[in-house]
């Protein structure tokens, strides 16, 4: 086997090239706007994108088993709206309880989806499309044409403003995100459950024959996704200091995009926590950076879309170049 040069290793690793892209981006923006790399700014970016970053972890697992979930923002809205209403009508007061309820709701929503996909053998795109309608509908039903504003949320909204979880160090929202990332990193790399996820995504038939309970793994993955969506429902309500039934509509594509940019394959079996993190960071840096370099915020989505297309096309082109080089090196 040929020894790979360091350069080849770096360009071959998606994660490595993303780090380089991120560094280049940050440098470029900082040149134009020196404030960009300030601690305050960085923390602000992280806080505002925490929801997408956390959900990207769940989507990572879903994509790893070769599935997809477009219902996540509906679950998020359903969970967030429910606790929003509970706060509004003084049914609950404690922040912890709010988070617990939202997360539990998300888990149940995800479980239902998982069972239908894994045991009902419904294709993920169809199942999650159906639930996208259903859960969003539930969110509207719970709202009853109302919404929960800042005053209704009381002390709940202060969650995002305080640093209590990390004993005063960093914002709570960011702490939650960091904890999630650490947990997922460990589970996916060092536990049997995590490796089974990769196995199912790489070759579900082989996994079945190996004795892995593929249906259980699939159900678990969608449940995890739902749990994170529920958690983010509470988080988003706190961050935006409001709960509305149309929270984060269409943002599920952002979550998927973060994973795709991060090198997660839609065919399953390939992708990493680091990749998802970098993908989400690249996206959030770009959106924050655009106005600072003079591009109107209105063009944000277009740029985001163009970048996604560019990334995936570039991926293909580099793969083709590598294949071509491989062929040319063959001695005939």
């Amino acid at each position, binding site marked *: *086997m040929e020894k790979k040069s360091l350069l080849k290793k770096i360009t071959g690793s998606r994660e490595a090239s993303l780090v380089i892209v991120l560094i280049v981006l940050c440098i470029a923006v900082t040149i134009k706007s020196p404030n960009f790399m300030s601690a305050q700014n960085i923390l602000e970016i992280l806080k505002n994108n925490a929801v997408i970053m956390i959900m990207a972890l769940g989507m990572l697992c879903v994509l790893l088993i070769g599935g997809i979930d477009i219902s996540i923002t509906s679950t998020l809205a359903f969970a967030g709206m429910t606790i929003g209403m509970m706060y509004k009508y003084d049914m609950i007061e404690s922040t912890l309880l709010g988070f617990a309820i939202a997360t539990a709701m998300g888990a149940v929503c995800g479980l239902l989806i998982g069972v239908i996909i894994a045991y009902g053998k419904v294709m993920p795109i169809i199942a999650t499309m159906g639930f996208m309608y259903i859960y969003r509908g539930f969110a509207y039903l719970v709202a009853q044409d109302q919404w929960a504003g800042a005053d209704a949320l009381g002390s709940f909204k202060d969650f995002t403003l305080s640093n209590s979880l990390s004993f005063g160090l960093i914002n709570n929202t960011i702490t939650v995100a960091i904890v999630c990332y650490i947990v997922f990193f460990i589970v996916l*790399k*060092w*536990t*049997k459950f995590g*490796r*089974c996820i*990769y*196995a199912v*995504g*790489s*070759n579900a*038939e*082989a*996994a079945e*024959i*190996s*004795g*892995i309970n593929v249906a259980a793994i699939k159900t678990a993955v969608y449940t995890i996704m739902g749990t994170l969506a529920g958690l983010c429902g509470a988080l988003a309500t706190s961050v935006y200091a409001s709960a509305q039934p149309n929270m984060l509509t269409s943002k599920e594509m952002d979550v998927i995009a973060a994973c795709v940019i991060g090198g997660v*394959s839609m065919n*399953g*079996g*390939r992708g990493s926590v680091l990749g998802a993190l970098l993908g989400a960071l690249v996206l959030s840096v770009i959106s924050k950076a655009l106005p600072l370099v003079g591009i109107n915020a209105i063009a944000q989505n277009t740029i985001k879309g163009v970048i996604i297309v560019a990334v995936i096309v570039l991926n293909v082109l580099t793969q083709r170049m590598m294949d*071509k080089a*491989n*062929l*040319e090196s*063959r*001695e*005939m």
Partner: protein
Amino acid sequence: MEEIKLSEYVLELKGITKIFPGVKALNNVQFQLKPGEVHALMGENGAGKSTFIKVITGVHKAEEGEMYLFGKKVDFKGPRDAQQAGIAAVYQHPTSYPDLTVTENIFMNHEIKKRGIIQWKQMNEEAQGYLDELDADFKSTAEMGALSVAQQQMVEIAKAVSTRARIIILDEPTAALTANESQKLYKIVDKLKESGVSIIFISHRFEDMYRLASRVTVFRDSQYIGTYDVNGITNADLIKAMVGREINDLFPKPEVKPGEEMLRVENFSRVGYYKNVNFHVRAGEIVGLTGLVGAGRTEVVESVCGITRQSEGKVFLEGKEVAIKNPTDAMKNGIILLPEDRQKTGLILSWGLGRNVTLPIVKKLSNNGFTNDKKERELSRKFLEDVDTKAVTIFDPASSLSGGNQQKVVVAKALAQDNMKVIIMDEPTKGVDVGAKAEIYAIMGELAQKGFAIIMISSEMPEILGMSDRIYVMCNGRVTGELSREEATQETILEFAMEKGGKKKREEAAK
């Protein structure tokens, strides 16, 4: 006090019957495996071998019958039970995880853990240990998908060894291997046998059987026919047991005087696949194109047929140069291809036979672009009957046919195109049982008599020697030798296929 009966067999099955909806896949079969023996399992396609293996490995549960492992009765509820009992199987198509590393593939589902945490370093080292024992030329940290078929098979064997299997089953182990790799595999089997493992292997190749096995069991039509000593049996006996009738003339090669040149390929090159390939075929000729797996034969003909594009080179049809840029061009010019992988590229398995046959000619049979179902049905029925396809209606899904019959559908599809001049068959009898093989050779002979030019790609020496008028041998993307029917022998072909002949030729040319 109960007497514990110790069996002389390490594995014994009695009266096994397995039924699927509408078909009895196994009918009261029996089998005995002695400790430390290598036991071959042979039979036509559809005889029940694969199903039988799946019963042993716990994938299927038999409706009737008993299985005894080391003298004790066992009842597997699933593949996991069989694995834990010490039975491992290495299948023809590696059932592995292409995105994961070799180590992960070996240790999947029995990882080395400390308090729930996977110990990667230790696993990598142990996996490397298994690979070294098998004389592997790759590392345990390599990605499975980047390995060749032979290497992947080695990983599967390492996996079996790592589970401390006492019984290892190999399903067509040499089907996708080159001669070199097959030799390596034989050595591995020897090693396994020495370490006390008992082995069952399925193969269509008599050479495998003679080299490795001490006994051979034959199944036919879901039934157990008999178990024979490899030393005492002849090819003819074995064929008779497998097919139930005598096949006298396996290769009915008619004497045909070759006519005009039909196809000539000049200076064909494609970066990374083949270089400076020249060959020609005349009307009525059967030209064999052989070589080891990976020599570039399929790549060459796929360029000739427009599936891929050559970097340089010309194709001449009946003396005139033709430009072939896509499969339609090739078919318009009368160059028809029967692809190597009939299930992936030759047929649409979910479709009925009739629609498979007429797929390339739907437009030709249409009325101004409107499909003519009646014409298609009649035409496809005619050609399917001509090649003697075993099916009830033309609407039977292609997936319901055996390998040999599926190949016949592919042949019918080629014949139905009607304007052909050159037929290129890529491994036409791969995975086809002896009975259907003979029928396909007969069809080939008839086509030659009718004046078509035929190119047959094959890795099986007997059919190359038996059917070809002339033989081209390729190695590493080049044509290394051209032999006539008279001068061709297994040895000379192998020499050319392994480059020794090629080097000689080039050295002589340089002098």
